[in-house]
């Protein structure tokens, strides 16, 4: 029996494009059965590429993809038993809604009960239906299509052409086309981004409900962090082709692994302010101080020692990877140039940056003086009579709450406060925050320390 925790496995999956671009780097993920995984990240982060590699629409340049324990790298999309919903819906404009949904079934052969001449299933000795690989009959297709149409509430649209439907209805048809096949894996590539805001919120819950009703394993790609937070059972945050963090929405919100995740997840974004750590006190450039309950300076030192060791150990690998990447890019554009490929690690920007990072860390450990990035979410800053007083620079009313801009630690920050009283420019408000809501990041690697 296949390990249900490894229903879909991606092991060191890489994608290089013909132009030498390294679109996805070492993607590792085990997806359990019935999970709702969301890939989220800004555009160009490789999330769609990864999805398309799982679908079989893009070749996998390196690494392995297992579906139900079987290596799927070279399987055709049909043989992977995946269904996909496209951003543009990709409905066949010339076919009716019924035909659009029936088409995938007409094209398929599946393990289905063997039928006798009258269309009744042939039973074996145990009284169970005998399964054979065959095409669907007209009747079976009809049942499946009507069933899916009923779930998606498009039963009365079946004879129309896609053109006659609204955006939301087309989206339903696209979902219907994906679920009629009862595929084990359902892939969705930004399915809601063509809908207006109101419909998007509605369809969001519809998709989650659909996922629960069909108990398929869903992989969903979006650039909208709200969709990721509300729909996912696990989120994969990606940036520049790298996986930044994998975890449940709660984990990712509470304990972002690095500055990128912290800023990408959560709306409005987390505030970041530079500070200097002095024992258990954080000092800001405007003289403001935050005292932590316990001294974490040893922890910070340990973090840097580990980072330094890690950076040093991986230096040769980093340089080699950088060289390989540049060479790939060079080869892809070879027809443009005549020169030989050259790589000088003493002048390469990325390598210099990496080496500078090492030098900086050594310096930090020696001087015991750590500059850090202090992070606090706008919703963590609460109104409190005992708190510090701030002057409001700008206030934005969102109905029941204000986004308040104020100076904190020498930088303009945002706080989310309930709209109990009127807050305007120049109003003085008192705010405080609980220390367990504070995040600290290392300015060199941008990783979370605390």
């Amino acid at each position, binding site marked *: 029996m296949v390990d249900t925790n490894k229903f879909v496995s991606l092991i060191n999956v890489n994608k290089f494009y013909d132009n030498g671009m390294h679109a996805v780097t070492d993607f590792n993920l085990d997806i359990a059965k019935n999970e709702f995984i969301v890939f989220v990240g800004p555009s160009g982060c490789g999330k769609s590429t990864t999805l398309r590699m799982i*679908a079989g629409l893009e070749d996998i340049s390196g690494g392995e993809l297992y579906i139900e324990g079987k290596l799927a790298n070279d399987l055709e*999309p049909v043989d992977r038993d995946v269904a996909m919903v*496209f951003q*543009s819906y990709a409905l*066949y404009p010339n*076919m009716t809604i019924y035909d659009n949904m029936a088409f*995938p079934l007409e094209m398929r052969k599946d393990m289905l009960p063997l039928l006798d001449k009258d269309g009744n299933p042939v039973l074996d000795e145990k009284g169970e239906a005998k399964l054979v690989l065959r095409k669907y009959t007209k009747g079976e297709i009809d049942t499946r299509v009507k069933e899916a149409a009923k779930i998606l509430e498009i039963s009365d649209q079946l004879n129309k052409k896609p053109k006659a439907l609204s955006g939301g209805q087309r989206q339903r048809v696209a979902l219907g086309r994906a679920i009629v096949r009862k595929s084990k894996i359902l892939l969705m590539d930004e399915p809601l981004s063509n809908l207006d805001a109101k419909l998007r919120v509605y369809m969001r819950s519809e998709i989650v409900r659909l996922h629960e009703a069909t108990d398929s394993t869903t992989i969903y790609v979006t650039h909208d962090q709200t969709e990721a937070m509300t729909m996912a059972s696990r989120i994969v945050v990606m940036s520049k082709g790298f996986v930044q963090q994998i975890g449940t929405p709660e984990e990712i919100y509470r304990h972002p692994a690095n500055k990128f995740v912290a800023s990408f997840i959560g709306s409005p974004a987390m505030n970041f302010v530079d500070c200097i750590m002095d024992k258990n006190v954080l000092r800001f450039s405007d003289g403001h101080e935050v005292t932590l309950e316990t001294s974490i300076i040893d922890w910070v030192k340990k973090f840097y020692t580990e980072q330094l060791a890690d950076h040093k150990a991986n230096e040769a690998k980093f340089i080699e990877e950088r060289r390989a990447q540049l060479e790939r890019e060079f080869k892809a554009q070879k027809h443009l140039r005549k020169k030989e490929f050259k790589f000088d690690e003493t002048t390469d920007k990325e390598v210099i940056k990496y080496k500078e990072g090492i030098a900086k860390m050594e310096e930090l450990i020696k001087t015991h003086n750590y500059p850090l990035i202090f992070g606090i979410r706008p919703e963590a800053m609460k109104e409190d009579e005992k708190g510090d007083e701030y002057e409001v620079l700008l206030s934005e009313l969102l109905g029941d709450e204000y986004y308040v801009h104020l100076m904190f630690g020498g930088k303009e920050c945002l706080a989310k406060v309930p709209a109990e009283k009127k807050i305007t420019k120049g109003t003085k408000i008192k705010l405080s925050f609980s220390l367990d809501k504070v995040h600290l990041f290392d300015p060199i690697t941008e990783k979370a320390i605390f």
Partner: protein
Amino acid sequence: MAKTKKEASMKRNRIIDTIWSNGLLIILALVWIIPIVWVILASFSTQTEFMTDSVFPKEYTIDNYVRLFTETDYPIWIGNTALIAVTNTVLTTLFTVLTAYALSRFRFKMRKLFMNITLILGMFPGFMSMVAVYFIFNMMGLIDSIWGLLVYYVAGAGLGFFVCKGYFDTIPKDIDEAIHMDGAPHIVAFIRVYLPLIMPIIIYTALLAFMAPWADYILAGILLSDTNRTVAVGLYEWMDEYHINSYFTLFAAGSTLVAIPITALYISLQRFFVEGISAGAVKG
């Protein structure tokens, strides 16, 4: 006050514009239509000569049409041309659409190069190759056969894929991927999804392929002999100095008849024709 003055002058300009442009269009239409009307009228004339003393015939008769079918080879020519036209329509459309499908939907080595070569080849007029074609066909024994002519028309058909490819390019790539995900084989996808979507361009291609043989004089004139003619070649012979005075009304009648099916087709399918041309224009 100043404003109304300006408005008045604008209005005057608009009127002048309308008169000017409509006037020009009327003149152009007349210039274009007079020869046609003249030929049609001549086809009903009792005088067989080319030079007559009046613009309009003095007496009208349908005798010319009757003679066309009873006394001349005209029915054979029509038959030949129709046969070529119909076969050419089917084959040319098939080849053009398939070539366009392949070049638009698939990515393969030399694709760009192939398209560029085609583009450059297309810049040379077809009759430049006439002599070579004659010798090659002579060697292959295809001279003096309407099938030889057909081979010439169809062989190069695939190279006229540009407009059709432009139309194919307007079908989003997502559709291909959806087909790929659904697991439909290319042939099924082509027939069930693409063909219905490209109907306008198929009709445009077919219409052009159908009309070409009716109007092709140069090549048909070289490849075909006296007995085995197409309408264009046959009719043109009546215009030489030996025949023109006795055959001119027959020529007019023949021309009029040929024009009827083409005109009818063109008008009934004009909608698709315009769609086809504009599709190529935007996306070509």
